[in-house]
């Protein structure tokens, strides 16, 4: 067959006219455009695969330094000794077999004007559209006394990996009677119900393995996700074992002293046998380098296209982005990524992207066989993603044990479904 490909046609067209007529769009190199996705988590991997599914002709490169993905959802169960760490790990093999080019390297600089990403292995990737899905970084200057070295003594375990196992080992090594102290940051941060699920499961571990021990949760907030459900469950399961100290009760941690494993508030000092400091966070490092993060450390985006409000042709999705009412969760990242893929596929075809509604669901375990959930629906409104009223909701407050057990099963199904879709 001697059909002239579009690419060839364009090249001929370019050759036949003044070269300067075309500002060398990447379309000349690939018929459907080039997309680079930075970050291979729930947002990035979903978006990369989604683009390939929508239009296999789009060239998609996923930039990710790790060859194995370690999932954060359910990692609290690993910490509490209820789950094998390997169950958190996923390979990118299936992502690659969908035609996504994997670049196992870290993005080192982004040239927004020249539309290129430089990698730490020396490669440079050109793009028509760039998707940044870098997740979170710890704000190392956000809590006096807390730095990388301190995190080895007082793990955050807020990015799944070695930190998860470190916290588990510390809990295992602790004597019965030891006091565990956790701290939870002010909003916004990754996984709003996460600290409270973790507190619940650590309390479960203490109750079953170290019943003389106690858990104190120091909080920089007075209110949190699924609060009444958690607090009811704590009363029911962990009375006298788990103490939550709210902001208005002086719970905000202002400083940590790693040498003595001490958390300091404005009104008290808490020396811990095991300390889990969940520190303030910001968008992953590359967001700042790309110039898409604002003074809050997070990335403002258009609520329809997720294109950065600070740089054109760069979209930001997942935990790094400011998504209005939508929480920083794996499901939200997955939902945003699908929308973003559809938007980019449309833009590359020269079409206007359609406005979409997004859904989030999130399950938390307060004990094995005791699950609670929250669901929400969001739509663009006044330049932000806003809650759709009377859609979604939380688990009933007065549900029987059978409902909680069912929701714990749903949580399992949730994890299998989402990781199956993104990595399977």
């Amino acid at each position, binding site marked *: 067959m001697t059909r002239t490909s579009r690419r060839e046609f364009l090249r001929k067209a370019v050759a036949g006219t003044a070269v300067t007529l075309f500002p060398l769009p990447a379309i000349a190199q690939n018929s459907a455009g080039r997309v680079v996705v930075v970050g291979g988590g729930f947002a990035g991997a979903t978006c990369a695969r989604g683009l390939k599914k929508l239009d296999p002709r789009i060239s998609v490169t996923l930039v990710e330094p790790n060859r194995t993905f370690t999932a954060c959802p359910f990692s609290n169960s690993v910490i509490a000794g209820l789950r094998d760490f390997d169950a958190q790990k996923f390979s990118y093999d299936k992502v690659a077999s969908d035609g996504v080019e994997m670049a196992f390297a870290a993005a080192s600089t982004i040239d927004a004007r020249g539309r290129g990403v430089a990698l730490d292995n020396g490669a440079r990737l050109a793009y028509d559209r760039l998707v940044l899905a870098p997740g979170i970084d710890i704000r190392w200057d956000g809590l006096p006394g807390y730095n990388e070295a301190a995190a080895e003594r007082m793990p955050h375990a807020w990015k799944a990996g070695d930190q998860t196992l470190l916290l588990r080992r510390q809990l295992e090594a602790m004597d019965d009677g030891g006091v565990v102290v956790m701290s939870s940051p002010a909003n916004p941060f990754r996984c709003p119900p996460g600290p409270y699920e973790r507190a619940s499961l650590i309390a479960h571990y203490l109750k079953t393995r170290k019943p003389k021990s106690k858990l104190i949760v120091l909080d920089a907030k*007075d209110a949190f996700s699924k609060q009444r459900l958690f607090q009811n469950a704590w009363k029911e399961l962990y009375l006298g074992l788990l103490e939550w100290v709210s*902001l*208005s*009760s*002086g719970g905000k941690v202002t400083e940590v002293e790693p040498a003595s494993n001490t958390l300091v508030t*404005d*009104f008290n000092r808490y020396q811990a046998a095991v300390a889990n400091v969940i520190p303030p966070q910001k968008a992953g490092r590359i967001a700042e380098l790309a110039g898409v993060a604002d003074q809050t450390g997070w990335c403002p985006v258009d609520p329809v296209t997720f294109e950065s409000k600070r740089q054109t042709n760069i979209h930001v999705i997942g935990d790094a982005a400011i998504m209005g009412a939508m929480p920083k969760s794996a499901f939200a990242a997955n939902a945003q990524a699908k929308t973003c893929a559809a938007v980019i596929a449309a833009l590359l075809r020269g079409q206007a992207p359609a406005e979409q509604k997004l859904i989030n669901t999130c399950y938390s375990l307060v004990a094995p066989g005791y699950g609670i959930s929250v669901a929400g629906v969001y739509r663009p409104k006044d330049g932000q993603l806003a809650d759709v009223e009377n859609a979604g909701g939380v688990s009933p407050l007065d549900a029987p044990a059978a409902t909680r057990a069912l929701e714990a099963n749903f949580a399992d199904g949730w994890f299998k479904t989402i990781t199956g879709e993104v990595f399977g």
Partner: protein
Amino acid sequence: MTARTLVSVPKEARRGEVIAIKALISHDMETGFRYDNTGKPIPRDIITQFVCLYNGIEVFRAELHPAISANPFIAFYTVATESGKIEFKWNGDNGFSAAESVTIAIA
């Protein structure tokens, strides 16, 4: 109405040392600018005044207004002069009052 109060004062200080004092009280600080579900205005209910006395002498005073957040947290400095009592008093709408006191030893 009882309110939960928290204060922080060093137990000991040197004479002449500048010390940090912190005080927090749980209070809704209802502004008076909001409406309930039926459209009726919610009456203002705020703390209007905070005073700190050091052995009976006023060392700090603050007037609070509707723009102050719930659970007001006030931090300030004073000079440690002598051993004794540091008192905190909050007053507000609807006869609200709360008090707390701690001792300080000067070396």
